């Protein structure tokens, strides 16, 4: 805990009282690597900070809000209905 606090005072998604928030999702983001130009806007705008530097989406915590798909300038992210 102390080492991570020294490193950066920034929050990362972690399991809280509600468990893994990814279970709330109805639509999941799917990245088309062909179209992606790695601009990083999705990672910057993600309200849950689930997208890392390599643009892998942490589906355990992604709530499927769709901001990444809406903001992607290349339209490389598609929201696909979750199959349960």
């Amino acid at each position, binding site marked *: 805990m102390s080492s*991570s*606090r*020294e*490193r*950066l*005072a*920034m*929050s990362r998604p*972690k399991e*809280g*009282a509600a468990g893994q928030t990814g279970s709330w999702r109805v639509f999941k983001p799917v990245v088309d690597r062909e179209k992606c130009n790695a601009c990083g806007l999705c990672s*910057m*705008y993600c*309200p849950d900070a689930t997208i890392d530097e390599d643009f892998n989406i942490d589906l355990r915590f992604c709530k499927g*809000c*769709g*901001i990444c*798909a*809406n*903001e992607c300038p290349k339209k490389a992210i598609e*929201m696909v209905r979750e199959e349960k």
Partner: protein
Amino acid sequence: MLKAAGPDTVMVVPACCTSVIQGIYPNTAFNVPVYNIAFGAAAACASGMSNAFRAAGKKTNVIVYAGDGGTLDIGIQAMSGAFERGTDFLYICYDNEAYGNTGMQRSGGTPMGAKTTTTPTGKTDAKKDIDMIIAAHDPPYMATACAAYPQDIFKKVQKALTFRGPTFIHILAPCPPGWRYPTEKSVEMGKLAVKSGMWVLYEREYGKVTIGPQSKAAMKRPLPLEEYLSPQGRFKGIEPKIVEILKQRIAKNYQRLAAEEEASA
């Protein structure tokens, strides 16, 4: 925000959405110490905290992170006091223009014409201009920002923390359930607010006003206000009369800020 502030930071949080984000004791979502305090006492608490840190010779950043209810309505007395005493702290108000936690009741920050659970036919009064109230305290630095421009917020927080004395940042935070629009439009809504002129980005540094480049572009070629109002459920069925009043207020606000910028240049 915390990325800009760094690890040597203490947060003071009154009752607001951040009280929920933190999680339930003993777990926390923050990597820095957070002090939860009564709704009206955040700035007073930060005042004492900051003085204690300075007396101990520490440079720890003290940041108050409050909502619009905790700033514009309930917390204004303590905040005004802290600014008047010249406390060395940063006050951040994130403004979703209503009391979101309790189910979107009207606040002093709700714009005219917006429907909330306590104003079902649309608010009849104008939004309180808290930035002018803060400006009257003459702090070394104050700014407005919008959640749709995270890099802008980052820079402003970094800048604000370099000043000695009270600093203020007012952030417009679009709220999907409260403003009644689909979640994926959050960033878009923030940008529309700036482009239509409902929200103006500017900084005030020792009285010198600088309007942000995004708002400067919007002043030259403003987006029709209807484009900002129509996607939001809270403005559904707004009277044309009120839209006119809002437009006039936007034009007046632009004029005032442009004049202030020119006068202080």
